[in-house]
């Protein structure tokens, strides 16, 4: 057996790969792409919600939203750290995000224009993320799997707080309920797009499944998501904006309409409603935070010097 065959056999036995183990270049590259995209999504994902922190309708809602956004920052950090164990530097990863070279989830290129969006985002966007992420807790790369365990533990509060925002609106006035419905109308299809292209159009699926860095296909996860979400929408009394949506007794699943793939590719290529705004906000935050990082470095350097000289004196 050569190295490659040994590696494939090892992974097939469901064993974990750790940072210093031998791995094929393609496995390393695919992981770097997948984990960094995931990290970028967590970080950019703070922006639509950050928009509502100062506009939340009560102090409690504001505290909850802040806690959620802070979690997403943490998720970004866990994932960047996992990615760095594969031999890339944090600075390079962030530079790739800011230059537009790296991708992040297309969902965050849609604007959050009403308070109800904070509910819908938690319910659908975090819900879809959970669906994608839970299987990754068992992914073949140890540091990635461990990061995902932490992430998933924290995600369920995100989805529940979102659903509860909608529940409150749906039990409120006509205007509040209309706000919730309008929000669902805008987010439903982009949420389904979060699972990526159809299986037959997805390039890396087969290899990624074999390497256990993907455990279900895009279409499998999308179906699971629809099946799980429809009864929740009914509970809220909201209508999912899809005339083709109906229960298929034979399949034991919901049938649903076709995603607008043109829109999907449009947003992926950088032409969604907020692509430019999101990247600008990221770059601005990075540049305007430079003095804080510089000050921390200067402080650390100065203290390292004083500590060293006092050691000499003693």
């Amino acid at each position, binding site marked *: 057996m050569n190295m490659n065959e040994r590696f494939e056999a090892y992974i097939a036995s469901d064993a974990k790969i*750790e940072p*210093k*183990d*031998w791995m094929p270049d393609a496995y390393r590259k695919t992981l770097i792409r997948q984990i960094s995209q995931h990290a970028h999504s967590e970080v950019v994902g703070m922006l639509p919600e950050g928009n509502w922190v100062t506009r939340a309708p009560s102090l409690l809602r504001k505290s909850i939203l802040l*806690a959620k956004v*802070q*979690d997403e920052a*943490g998720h970004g*950090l*866990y994932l960047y*750290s996992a990615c*760095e164990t594969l031999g890339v*530097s*944090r*600075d390079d990863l962030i530079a790739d995000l800011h230059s537009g070279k790296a991708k992040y989830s297309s969902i965050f290129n849609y604007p959050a224009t009403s308070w109800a969006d904070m509910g819908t985002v938690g319910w659908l966007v975090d819900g879809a993320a959970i669906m994608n992420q839970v299987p990754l807790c068992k992914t073949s790369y140890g540091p990635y799997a*461990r*990061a995902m365990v*932490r992430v998933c533990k*924290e995600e369920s509060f995100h989805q529940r707080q979102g659903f509860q925002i909608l529940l409150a609106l749906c039990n409120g006035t006509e205007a509040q309920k209309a706000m919730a419905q309008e929000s669902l109308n805008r987010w439903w299809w982009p949420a389904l797009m979060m699972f990526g292209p159809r299986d037959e159009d997805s390039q890396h699926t087969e290899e990624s499944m074999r390497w256990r860095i993907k455990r279900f296909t895009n279409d499998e996860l999308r179906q699971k998501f629809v099946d799980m979400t429809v009864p929740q929408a009914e509970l809220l009394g909201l209508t999912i904006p899809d005339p083709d949506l109906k229960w298929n007794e034979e399949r034991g699943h919901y049938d649903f309409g076709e995603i607008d793939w043109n829109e999907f590719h449009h947003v992926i290529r950088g032409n969604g409603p907020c692509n430019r705004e999101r990247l600008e906000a990221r770059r601005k935050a990075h540049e305007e935070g*430079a003095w804080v*990082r*510089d000050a*921390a*470095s200067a*402080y*650390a*350097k100065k*203290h*390292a010097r004083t500590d060293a000289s006092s050691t000499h004196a003693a």
Partner: protein
Amino acid sequence: MSERSTWPLWEVFVRSRQGLSHRHVGSLHAPDAEMAIQNARDVYTRRQEGVSIWVLPASSITASSPADKDCLFEPANDKVYRHPTFYDLPDEVKNM
């Protein structure tokens, strides 16, 4: 421009409660140990996951090499007599 790239990597260990040992939870970049503790507190203990934090520079860790796995850990394989189950004792022996 920022000197961020020179910030060392710290490994973070958290004691989840008194009586348990510190356990590795992840890593982060920080300019010094004090900031590393601050950041570790914000990132890894937002939900009462710990009562004590250790941070240490990742560069100070010496790790065994995966290539040495066999010569380090294989020899224990044929020393089954190190396990209590190796000893077949009559059923009459109680509490052992």
